[in-house]
Each structure stands twice: as C-alpha cells, then as structure tokens.
C-alpha cells in the first residue's frame, strides 16, 4: 500500500467516484482549470471535462443550491466551499434547504450531495481563513457532518459520503492536507459513516477528538505514556452528526475519566454535547469531571503567531488536561 497524503487521498476518492459513477460532478470556485486553491481537484477537469468539474460563479448560495436541485434530479454533486469562513452565504441553502428537503417532502424528495469544506487554523490564515464552524451544522438535524483525521479515513469517508443518500458536510482540515502520510489502499474501499474509531487503546483515561486535533491528541497520548506510563484511549469521532455515542461511552465506562479535544469554540462545540451525553448516560461511570480542551470563545482565529497559538489547542494543552483529569 502506498504512503499517501491526506490531500492525495481526497483527490483519489473524487477521481475514483467520478470514474465509477457518471452522476458525480464537482462544482465550486477555482476547482476546474486551477484545480482548487489547495489543488484538491487538480487534474480532474482535464480528466473529466468542464461539464463535470464546473468553475462556478463566485457565489456560495448557488453553488450549494444548484447542487441541491441537481441532486434532487438524480445527480451526485460534490460542491466545494473554498474556506469554511465563506460558507455563510450558503447558510440558507445548507440548513433550510438541504437539511430539510427530505423531511419537508416526507421522504419523497432528497438531495444526496457532499459539500466539501476546507476548515481550520494553525496556518496563520487569520480571521477569515481559519475558522472551524462545524458546530453550526451539528445543530442542524438532517445534515451529516464528517471530519476525518487521517488519509485513510479521508478517502474512505469521502467515498462513503458521496454514495450516501443524505446531505453530508465533509470538513477537510487544511493543516492536514500535506502534513501527514499514511498507507492508503489504491483499491476501492469505504469507511463507515456514523462510526467512531478507537485510534489508540488505553485503560486510564479516554480522550475524544476528531480532525487535526485527533493527531495532536495521539501525540499527547504518546507523551503521557513516555512520561508517566499512563494509558490514554483515543477515540476519533469521525462523524460529528449524527454522533456514534456507543464507541466513546463504552470507553468511558472502562476508563471513568474523559478529556474532549476540539478546535471549534468552546460554547456548544461537540465537546458540550459529548459531555452532556456522558452526564446523562454514563454518570455512574465517572471518577473525575469531564475536561474540555477547545478553542476559546472569541470570534475567530487572529493572524499573528502568539494570538493564533493562544487559540489553538496544542499537545501541551492536551497533556495538561489529561494530567489534571488523571490526578483528580
């Protein structure tokens, strides 16, 4: 199996799905001739033509809404939102249209589309090129929200999302695109949606995360092992909505201690929901309060290094939280 980057894994998922199913098409800003600002769709327009890799007008609302209509009429669109920070113009399309169409038509009209969204900080992108706004969509039933942490998962989950009959928001962390490599099969495979993964086994404390933060959490777990011998179980949520509760509750029942790590703002981030579920459904299992390591409640990630550093969860911050939880 070849070692593959996260970005190449996503590109191959797109290429393979387009080759497999002629209903699949891509639409977005700069996705065609340029191959996307991060080059995720590089080469696809040459391969599949400009009818299937559409350079759209600069208008997120119609990028998503035209995809909804096309999906209703039998296509499998994969629209791209260049930066999560610019998804707001498509907000009505996503939360009022895509999320509600199946419901409002009692299942008779559906829109199987996969909106790829590039998100996340840590690259000095500043206030408008760094945002993690997954929480906006987690609160919208009818949408599936996926945020892979590794090349293998990114490819398998994207293929599963494209084949799925529900609207999916697929969050790709820009910091992961080229920073990690993993063995990724060149053949067809999918990774199940709505299924969390145990990325590291451990009996002392459960760390729950996803996306780029999952990689930092794994590093923190390794550090804990080296420094104190503590065994940290690491759960990758992978799909943030609808949430696979059983995988993390099962781990919490064994470790009785929990740390949740995410890049989104603290208030009503996925950590809030995970904590509430643990409080409701596994209260008797806990030996320590649930601890969160998250972005603070500030409007966005500032550009200059010390301010961005303050925002971002880090290996050090995660280690500190794990220690606090273990020492409680």
């Amino acid at each position, binding site marked *: 199996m070849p070692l593959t980057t996260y970005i190449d894994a996503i590109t191959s998922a797109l290429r393979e799905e387009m080759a497999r199913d002629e209903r699949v098409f891509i639409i977005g800003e700069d996705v065609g001739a340029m191959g996307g600002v991060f080059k995720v769709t590089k080469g696809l327009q040459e391969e599949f033509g400009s009818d299937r890799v559409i350079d759209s007008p600069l208008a997120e609302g119609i990028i998503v809404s035209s995809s909804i209509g*096309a999906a*209703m009429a039998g296509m499998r669109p994969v629209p791209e939102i260049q930066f999560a920070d610019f998804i707001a113009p498509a907000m009505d399309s996503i939360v009022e249209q895509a999320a509600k169409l199946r419901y409002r*038509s009692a299942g008779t009209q559906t829109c199987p589309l996969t909106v790829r969204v590039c998100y996340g900080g840590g690259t000095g992108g500043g206030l408008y090129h760094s945002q993690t706004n997954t929480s906006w969509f987690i609160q919208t*039933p009818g949408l599936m929200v996926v945020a892979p942490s590794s090349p293998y998962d990114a490819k398998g989950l994207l293929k599963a999302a494209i084949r799925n009959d529900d609207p999916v928001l697929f969050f790709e962390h820009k910091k992961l695109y080229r920073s990690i490599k993993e063995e990724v099969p060149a053949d067809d495979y999918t990774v199940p949606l709505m299924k969390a993964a145990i990325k590291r086994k451990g009996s002392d404390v459960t760390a729950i995360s996803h996306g780029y933060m999952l990689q930092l959490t794994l590093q923190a777990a390794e550090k804990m092992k080296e420094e104190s011998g503590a065994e940290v179980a690491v759960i990758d949520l992978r799909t943030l909505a609808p949430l696979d509760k059983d995988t993390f509750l099962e781990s919490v029942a064994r470790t009785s201690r929990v740390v949740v790590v995410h890049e989104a703002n603290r208030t009503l981030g996925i950590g809030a929901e995970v904590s509430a579920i643990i409080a409701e459904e596994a209260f008797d299992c806990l030996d320590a309060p649930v601890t969160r390591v998250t972005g603070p409640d500030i409007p966005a990630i500032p550009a200059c290094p010390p301010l961005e550093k303050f925002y971002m969860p880090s290996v050090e911050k995660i280690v500190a939280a794990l220690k606090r939880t273990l020492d409680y």
Partner: protein
Amino acid sequence: MTKPQSIKSPDHERQREDFDSRAPLGKTILRRLYSYMLKCRTVEERIRLLFRQGRFSGNYFAAVGQEATEVGATMDLLAEDTIAPSHRNFVTHIMKGTPLTLMFAHIFLRKDSPDQGRCAQAHCGYAPLNIITPASTIAAQLAIGTGVALANKMQKKASVVVALSGEGSTSLGLWHESLNFAGVHHLPIVFVLENNLWAESVPARLQSAVDDFSIKAQAYGIRGITVDGNDVVAVYRASQDAIRRARGGDGPTLIECKTYRWYGHSEIDPAKYRTVEELEYWKSRDPIPAMERYLQQRGSWAESWKEELLAEFDKEIDDAIEFAEKSPYPDSEEALDHVFSFSIRERELNRKVWAPQISSSE
C-alpha cells in the same frame, strides 16, 4: 435632480415587440385557459371559506386575482417538467394534475398530504409530478429549480423548469445568483415573476427602482419580457414561447407578469396599506370575465357552460374535502421519520444507561 431614466436597451424593446405578434390561439386552448382559471378561483375561494369557518388551522396565501398568471405560465407542462413554486402558487398543482384529494389533505395537514402533515399550507410539493416542495425562504425555490435545470441539461433531457416567485423575491441575493447561473450555463428554465405590486405590506417601488422588473434579465444575459399578467392569452403565449426555447436549448427567460392579489398577503391580513381605488381598478381588470368576453366575441361562450363547469368543480371539491377530513393525522412519533435515509427512532426513543465496567487487564 431629475429621476434617472430607466435603462431600456433597444434589445429589451425588441424582445417585447417580438412577442407582440398576434397569431390567434385555437378555441380549445382558449376554453381550457378559461376553465382552469375558473377552477383555480373556485378552489381558492373554497379554501378561504374553510379558513373563515375554522375548518383547518394554519393560514392560506390566495392568488385570487392572479389566475391569468398562474394558469398561463404553467398550463401544458409535461409530467417530467418541474415546477418550483412559491407560497403563492398552490393552484399550480391543479395545472400539473395533482389530485384535489391530496391538495385538500394538505390544506387539512393530514397524513394523505404529499408531505404527511409537515409543511404549512403555503408550501406544497408533489414528487410524482415534479413539483418541488418549497421552503418558506423567499427565492430559495428559484435556486433549487436552477439546479434541477442544470441536471436536466447534464442528463441531456428535454425537460424544463418553471420557477415562480413574487416581485419581493428580486431583492434577495439568491434571486440574482439563480438568474446569473442560469444565464452562464444557458439552462432550460423559465423564471416567472409575478409582480402583484405588493410584498406583504411593502409596495413594489420600495423593492426596486425599475419600472419593469424584466429589465433585470439583461444583467444576466438572458431574455426578459414584461406581459400583462391579467391577460391569460398573453401570459400563455409568452410562457409557451419561453418554454419552447428552453426545451430547444435556447436558454432561460425571465417573464414579468404584472398582476394583483385581491386579498391580503394571507387570510389574516386585512391589507389596510392599500387604497380602495387601487383594489377597485384591479378588480375591474378581473381576468375571468375578461376571458368570458373574449370567448363570447369568438362565439365560444355560453353561460350554461360556465354553470356546468362550476357544478363539476364544486362536486370535485366536495369529494376532496370529504376525503381530506376523513384522512387521519399522522401518529406523533412520525415526527421522527424522514430526517435521514435511515430511521432515527431507535436512537431517539431508547436511551441506554452505562454502568462502570471493571477493567479486565488488557
């Protein structure tokens, strides 16, 4: 300072003139246009009566007065063609062939409604006939309709989309994004703009500084025409022309139909914001008697025919109401259905509680 002149290019004028050629329509078509208008009015007046009698809870947004536009724009669509309706276009279901029984089940919010009691009266779709179930968000249906047209083009189908909205919708970004995208991709779609002079209490002159909204089409490189929306023949001819062009790969058209709604924005709006004179003027331009006179001139009219039609419609409506009132409400827990492609009942209704697990040595 003088008011800026409205920007009408020669092209715009020419398009209006082109359309003005007066080849006559056959008697059968004229009579069908008339009987559909009469049916739409009869159905809506009955719904309004049911509302006043308190027979259903909710609200209704009647297009009474606008029948020439509703009928003219949507008559003779094929089953594969799509209608993208707004809150004002319930009667376009009649034009597409949705059974009245289902329409009234929708009014009564029953299980037999196409959406099984989910949407309010104003928002009604019907998948078997490709009527998009609209959201309440103004202009949203235009953008989704644009996407359907994109798929039709990609799939090389000859189907068209007729997307309807009021003049208020033209102020929203998505209205412009839709026309722009349809223009760029030369999509098989007809945007029917019902300019009924009011968006709730806001007059058209506060929506836009243009006189004819169709001029906005020029900004998107598509055809735009304005027609008398109370002249069913004019609306039908303009629409058929646009539909024929769209079907033939000749791209989108914006048709502005100038018309007027007789009643308030909805059944709970007394419409105090407009003058009696304005209403009287538009009532004097009622499209239904106008068509009666037109048919009379052509020797195709008999009062007895109208009475036969009305008797037939009333019977069909009575039967539909009986069906709808007998239709049950859905079970409460059906609220959990159709959220995703899989059922969420189990996860919503049965929560498991976890106990600590004595960790076996790993």
